[in-house]
């Protein structure tokens, strides 16, 4: 049985049994990267020697009979926005081209404790701002299912790496859909946990009140395993919640009985691709056949979610990115007249167009005279969006929807139309505004063989319910077992 393309759960079992070693697994994935990443461009940085060294140490631990962590030698790819001590962390930006953090993010510490092998750093839209990974300063990642199309974004590198069998697991970050949308576009499982479930300490901030780290995997079980590893309270993140973390990887196999699935009438409107809609309707039939009840719910303020998001996120971003001024770290312009000019030139050179656009938008929304009309207004509508969900979840257990209105779009197709690009996040953004957990699972293919994702949302801290509901569907379907032709192995 091949290593590449196996699920994380299968690989952990084989590692535990001693059928394979971490060196075998890590080498297989490093070779896959060498073979396929020239076309896919999912990785920004692969430290082959360091990965093999970690694998060797874990194998050694096992050989000595020492206790080995839950990931026991499994490679994990990391979105290049999560600080790792001694490893470049560029956020896909020229600004941080030479930035090497002197500390590990909380999730990286957790991965190390779980004996993961950190196999490489994945490409992303600069500072996680984008829906196509085209905003990376370094390279454009392709969708493994069609190399002329985007993998989605901003965690496009992580999604493409898992889809193309270059890593069994990956971490991404999701601020407006940046895990779920690329998971949908690439036909893998991607999950955004409840805000506060995973510590943000060490996640380079885009929009602090929306950002959340989450897992990518090629099946629901893998997502459960990785989430279980990274979730839980961290005293270094004031917004991290001290709630018990269930054993997701164990409970994920237990189906839910009497599941009530909500569909929002506002989600099935013009702009939704017919093939996507058909795939979602089919998925609902699968659930119905499993005894689930499908109920219509209303999310009347969901149509404002994109507008709210494009005030709240840029406002926070304009502030979070003020620190990149060429003084303490990051790019400093070579030529400038004085200190203010040094700031302005360094930032102009270090940031790409979309990042600048959002900084400008956020600065404007927070500036004197506009704060109430934009920022404050957006925060009030944000609460109404949350209230809609609270009401809906009194009626249903999860809400099902498309992940994105269309399958993966072409590279370059939307890059000059920011508003159209923003609107591709229409189904995912609400969960970030409301702080809810959401998952994207493979639910079909378009006629041109592009993956289509199903999104499920649940009330805060109901990741367990979400994973079990997703697994029920996955067990009945084989969408998640399909691999793109570009994948090695």
């Amino acid at each position, binding site marked *: 049985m091949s290593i590449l393309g196996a699920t994380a759960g299968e690989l952990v079992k084989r590692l535990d049994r001693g059928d394979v070693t971490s060196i075998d697994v890590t080498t297989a994935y490093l070779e896959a990267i060498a073979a396929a990443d020239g076309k896919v461009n999912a990785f920004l940085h692969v430290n082959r020697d360091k990965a093999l060294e970690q694998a060797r140490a874990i194998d050694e631990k096992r050989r000595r009979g020492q206790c080995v962590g839950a990931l026991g030698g499994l490679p994990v790819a990391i979105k290049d926005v*999560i*600080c790792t001590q001694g490893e470049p*962390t560029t*956020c896909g930006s020229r600004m*941080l081209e030479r*930035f090497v*953090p*002197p*500390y590990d*993010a909380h999730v990286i510490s957790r991965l190390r404790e779980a004996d993961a092998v950190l196999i490489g750093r994945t490409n992303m839209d600069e500072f996680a701002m984008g829906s196509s990974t085209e905003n990376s300063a370094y390279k454009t990642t392709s969708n493994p299912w069609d190399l002329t199309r985007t993998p989605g974004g901003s965690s496009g590198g992580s999604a493409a790496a898992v889809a193309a069998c270059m890593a069994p697991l990956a971490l991404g970050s999701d601020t407006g859909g940046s895990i779920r949308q690329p998971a949908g576009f690439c036909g893998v499982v991607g999950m955004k946990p409840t805000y506060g479930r995973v510590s*943000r*300490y*060490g*996640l*380079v*901030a885009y*929009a*602090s*009140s929306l950002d959340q780290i989450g897992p990518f995997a090629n099946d629901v079980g893998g997502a459960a395993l990785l989430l279980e590893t990274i979730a839980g309270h961290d*005293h*270094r*993140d*004031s*917004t991290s919640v001290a709630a018990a973390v269930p054993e997701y990887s164990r409970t994920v196999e237990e189906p839910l009985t009497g599941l009530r699935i909500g569909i929002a009438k506002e989600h099935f409107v013009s702009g939704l691709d017919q093939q996507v809609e058909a795939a979602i309707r089919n998925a609902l039939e699968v659930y119905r056949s499993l005894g689930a009840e499908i109920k219509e719910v209303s999310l009347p303020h969901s149509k404002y979610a994109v507008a709210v998001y494009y005030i709240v996120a840029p*406002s*926070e971003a*304009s*502030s979070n990115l*003020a*620190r990149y*001024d060429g*003084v*303490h*770290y990051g790019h400093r312009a070579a030529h400038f007249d004085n*200190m*203010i000019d040094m*700031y302005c030139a360094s930032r102009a050179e270090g940031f790409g167009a979309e990042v600048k656009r959002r900084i400008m938008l956020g*600065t404007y929304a*927070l*500036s*004197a005279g506009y*704060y109430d009309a934009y*920022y404050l207004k957006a925060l009030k509508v944000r609460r109404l969006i949350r209230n809609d969900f609270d009401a809906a979840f009194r009626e249903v257990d999860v809400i099902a929807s498309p992940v994105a209105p269309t399958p993966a779009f072409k590279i370059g197709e939307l890059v000059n139309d920011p508003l159209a690009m923003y609107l591709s996040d229409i189904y995912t953004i609400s969960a970030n505004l409301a702080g809810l957990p959401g998952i994207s699972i493979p639910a079909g293919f378009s006629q041109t063989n592009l993956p289509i994702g199903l999104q499920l949302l649940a009330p805060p801290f109901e990741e367990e319910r979400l994973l079990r509901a997703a697994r029920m569907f996955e067990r009945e379907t084989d969408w998640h077992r399909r691999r793109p032709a570009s994948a090695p192995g």
Partner: protein
Amino acid sequence: MTTTTIIGLEVHVQLLTNSKIFCGCSSAFNPHQPNVQTCPVCLGLPGSLPVMNRRAFELAVKTALALNCDIAPFTKWDRKQYYYPDLPKGYQISQYDLPFSDDGALEIEVGGEGGGTRKIGIIRAHLEEDAGKNVHDETGRGTDSQVDLNRAGTPLLEIVSQPDLRSPQEAKRYLEELKLLLTYLNVSDCNMQEGSLRCDANVNLHIHQDDGHKVATPIVEIKNLNSFRNVELAIEFEVKRQYEEWEKTGKKMGEVAKETRGWDAARGKTVPQRGKEEASDYRYFPDPDLVPVTVSAELLDSIRATLCEFPADRRERFKGTYGLSDYDARVTVDQGQAFADYFEEVAGLCGDGKQACNWVTQDVLREMNERNLSIGEFPIRAAVLGNLLERIAKKQITIKSAREVFLELLAENPSRRPISSAHIDQIIAEKGLALVTDTGELEGVIAEVVGKNPKAVADFKAGKQAAVGALIGQVMKAVKGADPQTVRTMLVEKLGNP
């Protein structure tokens, strides 16, 4: 035409915590080893996050309670955004529209003895993080400025007064009282040299014209005031400058933008200083990385329980309990808590508050100043001085002898370190300072002196009361330590009332 000076003060105080406000780095003053007290959080590194220091918040609330402020039941943290190299995140975490406290007052004594008190309103007190420190090139060659972030993230309490102060002297008095209160509360060391207490002053004039109209001059903010004396001097200068400016230009408040001026102590004048960000737009918004604080009645009670007696209350108590004058109460209390504690211990031991006050505010203070010692370092502990003064009250020695003992105790003498009450006995014995009240011992000497001085005796008998003084003097000379009161009584008795 008369003028009224209108002054409001903004005071920044570093709080006495072990660690910084949002991270575990030490907040100790350390200018000589730059950039050794930093971490990802206070460097503002990408990915780092702040977590509020509980002690900083509690010290802030404690101070606000002592300033009679209302404590908000709900408070939050905001980002104040501006660019400066000592501000690594590009924003300062501060409090904008919902500070944790507001509407307080500090009572200050104004004028001399019996000058009364005035309540100076406090608009608000809020908590924020300090910035780092820029070291500028002073050579004028345009070389780089240096940035040290050791100080970045030190907890800072900003206390904003109402424009209730009416003279440079009042402003200084307010600062002295505030500093005293803060040191009494042990919330800050208030060391201005080290920057743990910093002050900006907002000053303008109300000019009352003869036709009854009142004109307000534009408000000027004076920065860089690094001593109380400089606050006084800068405001004095500014009052004159603003009046002259008004006479020259006639410009009133609202007609020009608020100006920031810096105090140039060397030249003794305020000079225009353009702001860090002209026409600043700080774009305050709630910090999404920090969560709000709700202050419960229990929390307030627990903090209130840590409050000590305030200086103003202590002065009143000293006046009542020990019979001190306004002046003495002020001198005793204003020297700081340790000094006032010293006084109280001495007064308690000797049972005579006024006597204790005289000694502490004159002898002890004088010797402390001469030797450049704090009261904690003063070699004669309160227990020893109390013991010495108790002997005066018990008529064991005279005040004059006690002073001799006091100076002898302070004299270089390694065998008397540390100084104890036993040393007092030793010195009294060595110098024969014990007060002689033994009438048997005195009777012979008195008889002898009376016999030798017929003229004085005759004068006394003729009604010249003063003549007895000379006789007392001779007896005292013969018997060292003789109690003058006893001698006088015995002499008068012997000679018979004139």
